[in-house]
């Protein structure tokens, strides 16, 4: 039973999060000495993967310097990028494998820890079958690591259950992009954004979750572009918006259907494009016929006139771009939401041209690359389908196994947790994932982890999830190993090794390969005999070759010379593909975009008299995902020390809540207490809580487990809740309100 061996408070006292504020040696110590080496690499936080130079001296990262030549961000960085180096040389860093005993975690040798993991997983498989063990990876891992996670699960463990935390990110976009275009990637490079005449940002808090993209948006405005923003909150990007659509959580689909309705009603569709380049449009148009803007407005809370105006602006523009992110995707109809966005833009012919397209804004560090090469439960390297016999044969040959030995599609991340709850999956190997913070219905996740017969975690810090582990293997930070990642715009870039892991920790690929050799036994050990990430990448290139995400022509050297390469890039003389679908040609055999109608459905946690308010969640600019790294960086924590519950003054007044008061938020899962931030920048029927924190500060103890039936993304963005003025949690220190409204 993998419940934590000691109280949360004891574990936090020993393993953190503690706050790092200064480079090694302090501000005036040796780090202020002679010039350090500058290593050109990329930020580890978020899907934009900004170029950055790390200052390195004596095998320590001691600071940063902007990298102005890198074309994507040209030196720009958000506060996470500026302070990221403070995760290095951190006192919380794990430097010995740990095993769980009644009294706590005890350091042990690598040999002992690895042997325990192997024994733990193999005993379960011997008794309950291969699929009684699952592997969960993460989308902040390099593509080499992601590739190894998939190969380890499918070859060395022989389980079909391997998935990753990208399941909480882009999958609702991936499904309709694959369906429509035959490929799961943002079709346009970011350099297209300033070229759009109309820019429609829907469900994307650009300023806080993709801060560098702000510059692209403002340059679009500089060039005379019209900016439309749809969000339940007025996020910072709305300060220059020409039109703000305060959409009710969970109702984007109604709004998008009505926009399509207006386009069709007014005969503004691009007939020539639709006839030459699409299938299924008649059904899409028929579906929209029932969605006049007034009907939609009653559901989505956006004025009918604003819906009409948006539709006209998009349809009449020669070049329009729609950007979407989790606000559109984190719904039990996330796939339909994204499909409706695609339908709208393609109806107006906005695809495959400079400044025209529909683009997803990937959120996780390697959110794009992490899903392309084999840790996604239904995909093989190169974005190949695991159910495609030709794909299976290709990959099985490279892996040196028979195609029949290759497991089929497994369960997705949250389904794996549910299968653990049911007792079907008993063993878990997890890395780069902190479900205790990031999965919905936190109490349920905790119960599941406590049921595991064996649980090994690979991580550099002891995450809240690792508290539940039997074995913890200290892995490596991004800057401690070479590899590639693929940024949000489809650009494959090169992560440099700036330093080696500290004594006692090991590089992730070393750990994965050693586990592969030990778990794979005599038959498979040689399949994990990689001496370096470069060797893994060479095999990944071959495995991806001929697939949709073809990396065949990408080399570390070319990436360095050419500031990254956009896939597909099949051969070493291929220039890469910054913009997909030029000339309207998709990746389907018929070359057409396959549109699909998107019937309206209600969400999985509807409002009622008891729970009459929408709860939605998201990020703040200074924190990243589950906060395993950023909650350990002092200046980033100071910027947002705790989650604040945003609510409108009319809602606050109705509950007698003032700015800075404690508020108890109750959903069908339970109750949590947060401090109020009373602001006019949110819908009066909606509250918002950022999700980066664990335990008593966790927003995800309130969210629900309803998934999109196809993408299996949980519905983080819309839960039903009620509010009551609450008492401060025990031990709370007094703090001044952030807003000036108290």
């Amino acid at each position, binding site marked *: 039973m993998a419940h934590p061996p000691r109280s949360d408070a004891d574990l936090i006292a020993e393993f953190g999060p503690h706050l790092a*504020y*200064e480079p090694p040696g302090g*501000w*005036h110590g040796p780090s*202020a000495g002679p010039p350090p080496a500058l290593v050109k690499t990329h930020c580890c936080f978020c899907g934009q993967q900004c170029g950055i130079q790390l200052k390195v001296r004596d095998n320590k990262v001691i*600071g*940063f310097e*902007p990298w*102005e030549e890198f074309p994507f*961000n040209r*030196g*720009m*960085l*958000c*506060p996470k*990028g*500026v*302070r990221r180096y403070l995760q290095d040389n951190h006192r919380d860093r794990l430097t010995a494998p740990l095993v769980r005993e009644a009294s706590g975690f005890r350091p042990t040798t690598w040999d002992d820890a690895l042997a325990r993991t192997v024994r733990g997983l193999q005993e379960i498989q011997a008794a309950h079958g291969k699929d009684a063990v699952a592997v969960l990876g993460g989308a902040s891992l390099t593509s080499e690591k992601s590739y190894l996670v998939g190969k380890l699960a499918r070859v060395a463990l022989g389980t079909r259950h391997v998935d990753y935390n990208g399941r909480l990110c882009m999958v609702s976009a991936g499904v309709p992009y694959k369906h429509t275009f035959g490929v799961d990637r943002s079709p346009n490079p970011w350099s297209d954004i300033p070229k759009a005449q109309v820019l429609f940002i829907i469900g994307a808090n650009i*300023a*806080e979750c993709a*801060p*560098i993209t*702000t*510059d692209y948006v*403002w*340059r679009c*405005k*500089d060039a*005379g572009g019209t900016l439309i923003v749809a969000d339940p909150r*007025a*996020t*910072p*990007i*709305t*300060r*220059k918006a020409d039109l703000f659509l305060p959409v009710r959580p969970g109702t984007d689909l109604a709004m998008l259907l009505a926009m399509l309705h207006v386009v069709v009603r007014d005969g503004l569709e691009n007939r020539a494009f639709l006839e030459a380049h699409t299938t299924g449009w008649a059904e899409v148009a028929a579906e929209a016929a029932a969605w006049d803007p007034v009907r939609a407005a009653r559901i989505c809370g956006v004025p009918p006139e604003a819906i009409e105006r948006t539709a006209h602006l998009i349809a009449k523009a020669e070049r329009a771009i729609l950007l979407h992110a989790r606000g559109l995707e984190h719904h039990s109809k996330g796939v339909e939401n994204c499909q409706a966005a695609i339908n709208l833009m393609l109806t107006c012919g906005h695809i495959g041209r400079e400044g025209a397209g529909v683009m997803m804004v990937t959120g996780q560090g390697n959110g794009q690359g992490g899903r392309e090469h084999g840790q996604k439960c239904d995909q093989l390297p190169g974005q190949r389908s695991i159910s495609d016999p030709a794909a299976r044969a290709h990959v099985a040959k490279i892996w040196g196994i028979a195609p029949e030995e290759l497991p089929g599609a497994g369960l997705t991340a949250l389904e794996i947790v549910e299968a653990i709850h049911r007792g079907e999956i008993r063993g878990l190997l997890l890395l780069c994932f902190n479900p205790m913070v990031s999965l919905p219905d936190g109490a349920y996740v905790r119960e599941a982890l406590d049921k595991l017969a064996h649980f090994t975690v690979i991580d550099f810090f002891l995450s809240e999830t690792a508290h539940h582990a039997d074995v913890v293997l200290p892995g490596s930070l991004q800057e401690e190993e070479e590899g590639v990642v693929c940024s949000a715009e489809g650009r494959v870039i090169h992560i440099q090794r700036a330093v080696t892991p500290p004594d006692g920790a090991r590089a992730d690929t070393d750990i994965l390969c050693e586990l592969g050799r030990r778990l794979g036994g005599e038959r498979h050990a040689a399949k994990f005999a990689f001496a370096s990430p470069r060797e893994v990448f060479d095999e990944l290139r071959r495995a991806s070759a001929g697939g949709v995400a073809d990396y065949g022509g990408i080399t570390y050297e070319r990436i360095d010379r050419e500031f990254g390469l956009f896939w597909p890039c099949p051969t070493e003389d291929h220039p890469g593909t910054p913009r997909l679908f030029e000339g309207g040609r998709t990746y389907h055999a018929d070359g057409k975009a396959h549109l699909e109608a998107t019937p309206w459905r209600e969400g999985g946690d509807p409002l009622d008299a008891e729970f009459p308010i929408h709860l939605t969640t998201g990020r703040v*600019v*200074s924190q990243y995902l589950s906060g395993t790294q950023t909650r350990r960086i002092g*200046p980033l924590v100071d*910027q947002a020390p705790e989650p604040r519950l945003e609510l409108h*003054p009319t809602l606050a007044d109705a509950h007698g809540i003032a*700015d800075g008061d404690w508020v108890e938020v109750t959903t069908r899962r339970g109750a949590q207490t947060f401090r109020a*931030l*009373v*602001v*006019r*920048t949110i819908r009066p029927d909606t509250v918002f809580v950022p999700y980066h924190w664990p335990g008593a500060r966790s927003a995800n103890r309130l969210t629900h487990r309803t998934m999109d039936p196809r993408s299996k993304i949980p519905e983080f963005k819309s839960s039903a809740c009620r509010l009551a003025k609450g008492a401060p949690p025990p031990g709370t220190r007094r703090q001044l309100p*952030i*807003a*000036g*409204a108290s």
Partner: protein
Amino acid sequence: MIAYQFVIDPSRCIGCRSCENACAECDTHRGVPMIHVDFVDRARGIETVPTICMHCTDPTCAEVCPADAIKQTEDGVVMSSLKPRCIACSNCVLACPFGVPKMVVRAEQMMKCDMCFDRTSEGLRPMCATVCPSQALSYRPVGEVERERRDTPINEFVFGQQVVTTKVFLMVPEGTERVAIDVADHVWEDRP
């Protein structure tokens, strides 16, 4: 040589505080930011404004300094007070029309943005303007900024009787020539 200027455009600011964080990383005042970002009124909106030193041509802070502790570099950068001279009287803090200098009690001196003179003197851009994700803070030839953006860069400000010209430019709505801040400047009087 193309002259680079510091240009502030508050309407671009997204409040991310990357500038503050980067400022604290500067080698001349390690760990302490010299600039700040404020919400205009968080209860009512999300608008934020970054404040850096405007580096006046004739700096008021220096004029009112009884200890002659505030100096300009040859290229017009107004520096923090000279530690040996500064008597921590806060005259500069009170007199600055832009509200920039801060008395740092622990350091017993006035400290403020020095436009990263250690970087700019070596041809590097200031830390804040380099990292700023929205380019609300930018360090580029001002003509280039004017061509690309719709607003107008100005560097002349009127505070009642006082006209202040600054090294740093501020983007203002198209057609504005100079910014008059005092209400008195907007009052119509029928002078003889």
